[in-house]
């Protein structure tokens, strides 16, 4: 537990001191979303129709791109090797790192999402569902993406390869994340779909860090 807390505060501090890594995904999210009304049509009824998907695809890409360099700096500075050889199980610091990363890059997306949902002409009554769906979905996206990030850590051509590995794995989260907003817009029962999203989060949050740790071990040749 102390190891977890130490790792968490270290990761938070490191991220906090490189604000670009926090701000860039957030601006990416906002920018991608503002492309759609310009590219498709600013008609309110059309925007409201595509809004759930647009919000979710943008959030998914923002999370994925923020993960590209998740372990790179640690690897270059040798911290990763220390982490793998330390007496603490690798899962502990890995979980702390994922939590810190989500708190500073995933959570901001959740917080700005109601504003963007409103700009995409979604009715006000679904804004809560939008936030809730992203609150449950983005941590799952962070963990799944981190598996890809761990497997590609030593390779100097991250971006596209990470996308090829990770995007197929994102599809269930995307389907239910966007699906729950759509259900809410149509006035259907939301709790069941939210529960499935929560189940996906439980699955990824419990088993994901193990896979990330295994991936880091493989990538470092141990």
């Amino acid at each position, binding site marked *: 537990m102390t190891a977890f807390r130490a790792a968490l505060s270290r990761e938070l501090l490191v991220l906090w001191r490189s604000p670009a890594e926090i701000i860039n995904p957030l601006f990416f999210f906002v920018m991608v979303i503002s492309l759609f009304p310009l590219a498709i049509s600013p008609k309110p009824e059309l925007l409201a129709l595509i809004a759930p998907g647009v919000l979710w695809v943008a959030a998914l890409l923002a999370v994925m791109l923020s993960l590209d360099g998740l372990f790179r700096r640690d690897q270059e500075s040798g911290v990763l090797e220390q982490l793998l050889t330390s007496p603490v199980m690798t899962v502990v610091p890995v979980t702390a790192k994922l939590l810190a990363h989500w708190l500073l890059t995933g959570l901001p997306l959740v917080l700005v999402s109601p504003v963007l949902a409103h700009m995409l002409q979604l009715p006000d009554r679904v804004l809560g569902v939008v936030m809730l769906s992203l609150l449950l979905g983005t941590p799952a996206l962070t963990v799944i993406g981190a598996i890809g990030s761990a497997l590609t850590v030593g390779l100097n051509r991250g971006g596209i390869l990470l996308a090829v590995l990770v995007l197929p794995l994102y599809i269930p989260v995307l*389907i239910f994340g966007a699906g729950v907003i759509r259900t809410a817009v149509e006035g259907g029962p939301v709790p069941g779909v939210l529960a499935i999203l929560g189940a996906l989060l439980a699955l990824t949050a419990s088993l994901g860090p193990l896979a990330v740790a295994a991936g880091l071990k493989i990538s470092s040749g141990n």
Partner: protein
Amino acid sequence: MVWQTLKRWYHMLGSPRYFHTFSSRVLPWLTPIALITLLTGLVWGLAFAPSDYQQGNSYRIIFIHVPASSGALMGYMALGVSGLVAVVWRMKMAEVMLKAIAPFGAALAAISLITGSLWGKPTWGTYWQWDARMTSMLILLFMYVGVIALQNVIREPRQAARAAGLLAIVGVINVVIVKYSVEWVQTLHQGSTLKLFGESTINPAMKYPLLISMLGLWLLYAVNVLIRARSEVEWRERRSKWVQTLIRTGGK
């Protein structure tokens, strides 16, 4: 007794050298059997099976479509099992298998998608629909591509195989979740008419050629995997004595 034999088999085939001699004994008769079975099934299905009362002759693409789809799915499951063995027990042959299984499976997924869309045009009136099974197969193809891409960028072969293995394990879990999640979105595809146990809803005159061509394609897949695994084993063990002797004697 059976368990003991299986266990011994597993360990013996885990040795690259034993696998090599084993495969050179199996391949000469497995290859013709696979080809003959596949051809029998295809010729029977394409030329002799009765035509469908509703779809006419267009249904005959089923004799390629269904075997390809099942092969692609089974291939990914095999990839997941090899991945588990490679990551957990670090068995060399499982690493080789990871590399040998992926390409043919990806090709089958592509064939399944192409034949499916060609079949869709006359029966559903469209080449493509975002229906549950088509979407799952497309995602399966993406995941094959991911495994192959990851194997290709990592230079150290053992590390590449283990990384791809971990991805395949995660992928197998994902296949299952994807299947249910896309079904949740919508379904247009017909349900499965072929059941191994219980009553099939397909005409027996169509069922047997379908089963035979399925079996033929699976055998052909096995032949392909064996050939790929052999050359991979030869490459990996190129510095060992037995491969050197093999090269000197010209493969005899």
